[in-house]
C-alpha cells in the first residue's frame, strides 16, 4: 500500500507527505528520483531522515522528525511555505482520512466528542494541493467503511480528494462517485464493495493488482 502510493509520485513534482503513513512513502523512492519534497515548517528539498545522534536541532520536518537537506534545498518562513501550498505550486499531497465522501469531501481532523488538538496545516493542504491522494486503511478499527456517501464528521475541505489508496484497493473520486482502479493482491471486488460505504463503479475486464 505504501509502495503503491509511491507510484503516484511522477518525476519533477513538488510533493507534501502528511504525517503518519504518507511520510513512509519516501522510503520507496530511489535516491536519484527527481522530486521536491515540501515540509510546511519551511523546507523544500527534504533529504533522508537522520538518527538522533546525527540530528541538527534546527532541522526537523512538520512531523518533528529530524531530516536533512539535499543540494538545492531552500529554507523559508511559514508565510512563504503556505503561499506555495495555496497558490498552486504544490502538485501533490498525501493525507490520512477519517472519512472520504463520494464527492471527494474529506474529514480528517476532528471527531466530535473527542478532543481535537487543532488542524495545523491540514485544511490548506487538502483544499489547495493540485492533487490529493488519501492513504488510509479501507475501514476504521471497528470495521466501519471510511469511504462513504456523505461525511458525518466535521469537514476538512469539500470535494478535494482525487484518489484513495487503501490496504484493499485504489479508488478514484469521479463525477460519478467512487471508481475502482486497482486491487490489492489477494483482495476481490466483492470484498471491496462490502467494505465501501457508497456505490463503487467497477471496470469491465481485468483489474490491475498491486
Amino acid at each position, binding site marked *: 500500500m505504501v509502495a503503491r502510493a509511491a507510484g503516484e509520485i511522477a518525476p519533477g513534482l513538488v510533493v507534501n507527505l502528511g504525517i503518519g503513513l504518507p511520510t513512509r512513502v519516501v522510503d520507496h523512492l530511489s535516491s536519484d528520483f527527481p522530486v521536491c519534497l515540501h515540509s510546511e515548517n519551511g523546507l523544500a528539498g527534504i533529504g533522508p531522515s537522520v538518527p538522533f545522534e546525527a540530528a541538527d536541532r*534546527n532541522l526537523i520536518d512538520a512531523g518533528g522528525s529530524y531530516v536533512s537537506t539535499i543540494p538545492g534545498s531552500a529554507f523559508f518562513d511559514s508565510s512563504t511555505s503556505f503561499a506555495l501550498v495555496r497558490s498552486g505550486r504544490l502538485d501533490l499531497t498525501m493525507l490520512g482520512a477519517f472519512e472520504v465522501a463520494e464527492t471527494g469531501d474529506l474529514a480528517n481532523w476532528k471527531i466530535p466528542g473527542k478532543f481535537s488538538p487543532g488542524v495545523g496545516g491540514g485544511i*490548506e493542504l487538502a483544499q489547495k494541493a493540485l492533487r490529493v491522494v488519501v492513504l488510509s486503511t479501507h475501514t476504521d478499527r471497528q470495521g466501519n467503511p471510511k469511504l462513504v456517501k456523505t461525511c458525518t464528521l466535521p469537514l476538512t475541505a469539500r470535494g478535494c480528494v482525487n484518489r484513495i489508496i487503501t490496504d484493499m484497493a485504489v479508488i478514484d473520486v469521479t463525477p460519478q462517485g467512487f471508481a475502482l482502479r486497482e486491487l490489492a493482491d489477494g483482495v476481490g471486488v466483492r470484498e471491496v464493495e462490502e467494505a465501501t460505504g457508497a456505490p463503487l463503479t467497477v471496470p469491465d475486464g481485468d483489474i490491475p493488482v498491486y
Partner: protein
Amino acid sequence: MRLPDKTTRLEEAVAHIRDGATIMVGGFGVPGTPFTLIRELVRQGQTGLTVIKNDANEQDMGIDHLLVSGQVRKLISTHIGLNRRAIELLNAGRIEVEFCAQGILAERIHAGGAGLKAIVTDIGLATELTAGKPRVEIDGEAAVIETALRADVALVHADRSDVFGNLGYAAVARNFNPMMAMAADRVIAEAETVLPLGGLAPDAVHTPGPFVDHVVGLEALSEEYQVVRR
C-alpha cells in the same frame, strides 16, 4: 550616519511586557522557540496574557511553562497535540484556545506586520474554523475576512543578530519568527550570536533591523534548545 545599538539585558527587555498583554512567540516545535525569553517571562510572572504561537511546544518545554504557571488566559494556535498538558488545561476550562489554519495564521500575522486590516481567503470555508467570521464575495466566489493580528510584544529567536537588530535564522527555526518580528509594537529578539554592525551581509538579513527593538544575546543554550530524543 550610524545605526543605533539595541542590545538589551534579558530582564530589562522582558520587563516591557505588561499584565494582560498580547504576545507573539516564534517557533514551530523546538526550532525557533525563544526558550530563554519565555523562561524570563515565567520568572517575572506577568499574567492574563494572550499568546499567539503556532503550537504549544511539548510538556515541560517553552510556553508549556507559561501554561503551567497560569499566566496565559488565551492561546491562539494551529495545533497543540504534542502537549498533553495544554489539552488538559483546555479541557478543564483553564485556558481558552482559538484555533486557526496554520498558513492563515501566518498570513494574518503578515497582514498585521504589513499594516493591513485583514486578508480575504477561501481557506476553511467548509470548516467550523471560519464560522461566525464575516463573509464577502470576490469575483462571485465566497470568501471569509480574516482580521490582521498584531501583538504588544513579539518574542523571537534568531541564530544571529547584529547590534542594530538585523536578524538571521537557522534552517527551519525561521518559521513564524520573521512575520512576528514585524507585527508587534515591541519586538524582542534573543540571538545565539550577536555581531557588530556589518557582521551580517545586507542581502543575508532575514528580518531588517528597523523592526526590532531589543537584542538579547544568549550566553548559553539550555537543554530545551537541544535535539529531542523521541
